[in-house]
């Protein structure tokens, strides 16, 4: 066996039908099948989920923190983009 580490995977769990998958953490696994089993064993022990996604961490491209100013700050003064000017009926959930 060589000493190279198994690749890192990011785990996303959907906790309930109708909700979306949320990032819960990461783990090591040799391939996708093992990552799926490991995710089940590490992250769903306490009834956290009904669905699991795993993706190898190297496939996730992150925004550069150094570019945060030009990426995000321009949205700060554009409050009219929020849909908060509408009244949401009480019967609409998960908004």
């Amino acid at each position, binding site marked *: 066996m060589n000493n190279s580490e198994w690749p890192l995977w990011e785990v996303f769990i959907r906790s309930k039908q109708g909700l979306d998958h949320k990032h819960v953490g990461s783990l*090591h696994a040799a391939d996708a099948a093992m990552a799926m089993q490991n995710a089940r*064993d*590490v992250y769903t022990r306490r009834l956290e989920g009904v669905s699991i996604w795993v993706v190898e961490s190297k496939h996730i491209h992150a925004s550069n923190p150094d570019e945060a100013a030009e990426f995000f700050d321009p949205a700060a003064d554009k409050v009219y983009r929020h849909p908060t000017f509408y009244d949401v009926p009480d019967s609409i959930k998960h908004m």
Partner: protein
Amino acid sequence: MATPDLSPAHTAAPAYPASLQSQLFQYVMQLADTSLILAHRLSEWCGHGPILEQDLALSNIALDLLGEARSYYQYAAELEGQGRTEDDLAYLRSAVEYRNPLLVEQPNGDFAHTVLRQFLFDVFHYELLIGLQQSPDARLAAIAEKSLKEAAYHRKWSAEWIIRFGDGTAESRQRLEKALRSLWRYAAELTAATPVEQALQDAGLAPDYADIQAKAAAYVAHVFGEATLPVPNEAFAQPGGKLGRHSEHLGYLLAELQYVQRSYPGLTW
């Protein structure tokens, strides 16, 4: 074990003829011992797993089996009706009174050894629970139904690792082959009916081993095929555990398992 009672909904034990009731008690004890001893072996990995993720996987399986063992011990205590509790049955018997097959008391060895022991058990356990679900004994059927989902995952987990070891690197394969040479002889005992098991099968309360054996063998052949591993044709089989004739390993295991209860009888926390 002073945690809430998680056993299936309590159902009054049906009235069986005295001899059958006694045999059912012994059979349920055998199921309980088997799950308890294997759970203890797996729990020995806690903190020592090859990687964190597999450490948790082993502990999860151990806890599943411990929960199943509790359900059986609770039912056995009721069947016996002598006032003994699940703790008395699990912790206060000597090695010769345990009825688990030899396979589950074998030491962990390396990870391949543990995986193979688990796989040989899981394949049998899965088919057994499918059969027990149909038992006219409502309590046994309920425990089997709850445990089957867990056993299905255990089998998936261990089969996956058998394939990885067999069809992996030269070293992984060599480790699995070594494990096979030491463990294969214990597999046959799982489906070799003792007089008690035969009586339960004749009474229709336990599933027929011929059927289970055939299905288990077919699944083992399938997974070994994926793992590019020939199924051993070694005929030598070592039975005994289900009759109380154990290897020396069980005594050491029980010394650790029973230590707290023996040192501080009746303690709770």
